[in-house]
Every structure is written in C-alpha cells, then in structure tokens.
C-alpha cells in the first residue's frame, strides 16, 4: 500500500518514463530482472572475487589446490585474518586502528622476553595478550577521553610509539624462543585431518582464526554490545540520544582490536619460535586492506565478519598464486593495491544499482 505512495516521488526516478507504453513496461520488467541478477551477484561482493581468484589460480597452477598449499595459505593468512577481525570492529564505528602492526611487534617482544626470563608459558601468553589489550585501551582512551579529533591520530602516534618501545625493549634484536604451546598454535598442523602427508596439512592457526571469528560473530550478531557498535557507526548522535554508552563502545573496539593484535603476536611468535621487534611491520595495512576489500564502509556501520575474513583470504590467495607462478614479489603489493580499488569500485557500482533498483521499484505497481 505504501508502495503506491512512491508515485509521489516519481521525479526521483529516471525510469518513470518507461511506464508510458505497454512495450515500455515490458522493457521495464526485463530491465528489472537484469538489475536484480546483477545486484544479487554484486551483493555477494568479495566472495565472488575470492571465487574468481581461486578458480584462476587453480587453472594456472597445478599445486594451488594441493592440501599442502591450501594449508600454507591458511597459515599465512591467519595473522591478517585475526587483525582484520579486530580492525572490522573499529571500522564499524567509523574508526581506524593504524597501530595493530606495531602493537603485534611489541606484544611479541614482551611475550618472548617474559618467556626468556621466567620460562612460564601462561605468564608469557598473558603478558603478550595484556600488552595488546593495554595498547588498545590507550588508543581508545586517547581518542575518547583525550578528545583527539579522529582515531587516525592516536593510533598513528601509537604506531610510532609501540614500534619504538618494541625496539627499545629488545635492543633491536629478535628474542629467540617461545613457549612450546605457542609454537604448536603458530606452526603446528593437525595430522588427523585426512589428506597431505604424515604431519598433516591443516594448520592449527586456522583453528585460532575460526575461534576468534566465532567470537567476533557472536559479538556482532548476538550481543547487545555488538548492536551498539553498529548503532554508533551508523549514527553516533542518535546512538547517544538513544542512551547507548557511545564512549564505552568506542573504547571497547580499540581494546578488542589491541587484544586481537596480541593474539596475532602469539601466532607470529609461534611461527618463528621468536619475538621480533619488527614482526608486525606494515601488518596494519594488510588488516585495513582486508576489511575494505571485504566491503566494510569507512563511513561506519556496514561490514561483516565473513566478508572481512574473505578480504583477508583474497590478499593471501593472490600472494600465494603470484608466488606459485614465480612472479616477482614486488608485484604482490601492486596487485594488492589493484584489488582494493577493484573491490571498492564494485561496491560503488552495487550502491548505484541499488538506488536505481529502488527508483524502479518506486514506479512499479507490483
């Protein structure tokens, strides 16, 4: 019934003319079907890009779909996946966390030095996670309580500061050694999953990613707090007017992003059996790229866990494919840049088609 009311808005709809004749109306319906199809594909967004990349890579390389290689891709993408999930929460609130790479380095250095000095795995793990969370808390508090105008600023400052602190604490040297459990998580493989050779192909790090993903999914989909994150991102003024504790929500996403940088630090420590002060360098760029390729909006309020993971996998699959084809690694960065632009252009196209679809609906009495 309300749909009829749309006719009042016809001036908005460029397609309004097609109702003038029956033939026009028929064309109109055909156009609408095509639009629906195109929109359906575009709404799948990053999943389509990932599918195409996988198809292309498996055609170009025999080993791409082998168990070992899939295991490698999963293992290599684990750190970016975990960081991307934290970054997603931040981006949902219209923010950005530039410090996750430095935070990873710092947390790894702290974790490794605690392990070196105390040989206590629980203590080392707790130290790495606490460092990550603390750095995130400082980011959030500087932004909210320090009233800095945009999260770019505190997290940029933290990018510099945390990286400096990591170098200072480690004397600019890699601290060798990590708790066995951390090594297992970061580098271990599950031998009981069929396929591959005796040591197995499925990386335990992928299980960590899955666990973190389920957790973030729970937060974003099921918890009141997650709903508040979307509210704050969608309309901060209205969120405050509706009694949502906006400052706490904002601080919380930086704490969680930092905490996940701590988790990523453990994965990195395990991968190399060491804590390096530069192990997280530039990781923030991959995390941000993953979230953007995954269709999250920098304007806030839009983005999903599955798409952020897909974005991270797109980056990993692309790098892996280029490696397998023996292409100069420097091309990988350029390819990442190209995929960012492509993904966002597709999203812009989706938004355009959606508004055309809306105006078509507005003049269609069905």
């Amino acid at each position: 019934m309300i749909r009829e009311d749309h006719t009042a808005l016809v001036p908005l709809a460029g397609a309004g003319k097609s109702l003038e004749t029956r033939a026009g109306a028929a064309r109109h319906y055909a156009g609408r079907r095509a639009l629906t199809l195109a929109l359906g594909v575009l709404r799948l967004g990053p999943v389509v890009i990932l599918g195409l990349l996988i198809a292309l890579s498996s055609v170009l390389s025999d080993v791409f779909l082998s168990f070992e290689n899939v295991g490698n891709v999963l293992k290599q993408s684990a750190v970016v996946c975990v960081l991307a999930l934290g970054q997603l929460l931040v981006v949902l609130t219209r923010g950005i966390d530039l410090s996750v790479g430095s935070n990873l380095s710092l947390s790894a250095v702290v974790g490794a030095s605690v392990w070196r000095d105390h040989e206590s795995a629980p203590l080392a793990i707790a130290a790495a996670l606490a460092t990550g969370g603390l750095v995130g808390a400082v980011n959030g508090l500087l932004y909210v309580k320090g009233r800095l105008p945009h999260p770019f600023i505190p997290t940029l400052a933290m990018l510099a500061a945390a990286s400096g602190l990591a170098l200072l604490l480690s004397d600019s040297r890699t601290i060798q050694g990590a708790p066995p459990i951390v090594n297992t998580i970061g580098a271990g493989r599950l031998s009981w999953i069929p396929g591959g050779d005796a040591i197995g192909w499925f990386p335990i790090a992928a299980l960590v990613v899955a666990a973190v993903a389920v957790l973030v999914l729970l937060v974003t989909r099921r918890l009141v707090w997650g709903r508040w994150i979307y509210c704050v991102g969608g309309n901060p003024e209205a969120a405050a007017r509706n009694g949502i504790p906006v400052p706490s929500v904002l601080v919380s996403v930086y704490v969680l992003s930092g905490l996940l940088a701590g988790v990523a630090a453990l994965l990195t420590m395990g991968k190399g059996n060491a804590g390096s002060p530069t192990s997280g360098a530039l990781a923030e760029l991959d995390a941000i790229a993953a979230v953007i390729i995954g269709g999250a909006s920098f304007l806030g309020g839009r983005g999903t866990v599955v798409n952020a993971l897909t974005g991270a996998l797109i980056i990993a699959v692309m790098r892996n494919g280029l490696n397998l084809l023996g292409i100069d690694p420097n091309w990988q960065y350029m390819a990442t840049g190209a995929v960012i632009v492509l993904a966002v252009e597709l999203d812009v196209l989706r938004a355009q088609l959606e508004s055309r679809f809306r105006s078509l609906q507005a003049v269609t009495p069905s």
Partner: protein
Amino acid sequence: MRAASPLLQVRGACKRFGAVVALDGVSLDVGRGEVLALLGDNGAGKSTLIKAISGAHRLDAGTVLLDGLDITAADAMTIRSHGIETVYQDLALFDNLAPAANFFAGRELAGPGWLPRGLRLLRHREMSDRTRALLDRLQITLPDFDAPVARMSGGQRQAVAVARAVAFSSKLVILDEPTAALGLRESARVLELVRRLKADGVGVVLISHSMDHVMTVADRALVLRRGRTVGEAAPNAGNQEQLVAWIVGAVGGQSD
C-alpha cells in the same frame, strides 16, 4: 495526579543563548488525545521549545509538567522514560539498520538479566515480532521488513521514525516538521498516522509550516513569534488569515 490536569503543561518557559532570547515566557497545555500545532516563522522559538520539553535544552526559567510530574530539570533519557518521544527533522534513524533494530536501539530486548546489559543476547525474534505488530497496528507497510532503512523512501522512513516514537507506549509525541520532505500522498499517510495516535489517546505536538496539514489534524494552534506566544486558536478556514498574520507579525493588518 489529578485526572483533570492536562497531559503536558509548560509554564513561563524562558531560554536565552547569550544575548539572544529564544523563549520569553511561553506557556502551553496539551491534553490526552489532543494535537497541538506549534506555528511560527524561522527563529520564532519552536525548536528551542520542543528541545526544552524533550530535555535536550534546559530552561533558564519556567516549568514543564507531565501528568503533574515536574520534569523541568530531567535529562533527555529520563524524559523519554516518562513517555515523551520526539521525532526530529533529521529523523535520527540508523540508516544501516533494519526497522526492528531502529525501534529497539538503546533498549534492545535481551537476556539473561543477570549479565551486564552489553553482554546480553539479543532476542531477535521477539523484537521483529513486536515491530511487525506495531507497524500493522499503525497500518504501515514496508516493501522489505529486513532491509536497512537507507533503502526506503522518504515517507517510509518518516513512518518508521514516527512508529518508533510511539513504539513504547509513550504519552506525548513531538513531531518536528514530519511532512516537510514528503510528497502529497506520503504526507497524507503521515497525517493519518497522527490521527491514529490521537485516537489512541496520545498527545501530539506538531511543528509544521503547512497550514493545510495543521488545519487537517490539529485541534489547536499556538503561534510563537520572537520567543513569545502571540496567539492561540483552533485552526480552521475561518481563522487561517489570522494565524498567518500572527506568524508574520502583521497583527491587525500592520506589519511590525
């Protein structure tokens, strides 16, 4: 609580911003099921007045009583919990969320109760059911109930915003130019919605620049000019000219 007292009473409301006197002793009453139109030129003090009622501004002097309860000094959230809802011109919707999420933003249905608010699990089903029931009651139909409101037309968005305002058994709804951005038919829908609120016994304060719309739904019209009440009348074709004269300050045929 005296049953005879009006739902909302504002007495001698004064508010200044620096040297600017926005409200200078304005008083008004709104009864249950009554639609009061607030008229006035830009800068007459209408927005300041409704913001004072809804708790966004605090009055320098004067009182606001709801059902005899003094809410003059209460903050916006407290006033909402007492049953005054405001639909601002910008609608204050969450464009990225579906209507149900919009309805329950900040007061999500969730449990269990022993957990801190933020960690409770959303009761999605219950929230959508209640949203659907309310939209049905107000005879609002939406093409896609689960779509974000960004994908809806101006009239649908307005309907969602108004429905949200009355979703929680509020006593008084303040509508700030609810038809300003709408076409003819969508405006008619919103006015119909106002009538239904009235029939439900909800008091309505309506700000509108459309004299037609005011005459269609309002029981009384109060005209503000430069922060003062300059006239009050039941809006009808007979006194339309008088109302316009009050609004532009041309009382008795002479402009000031």
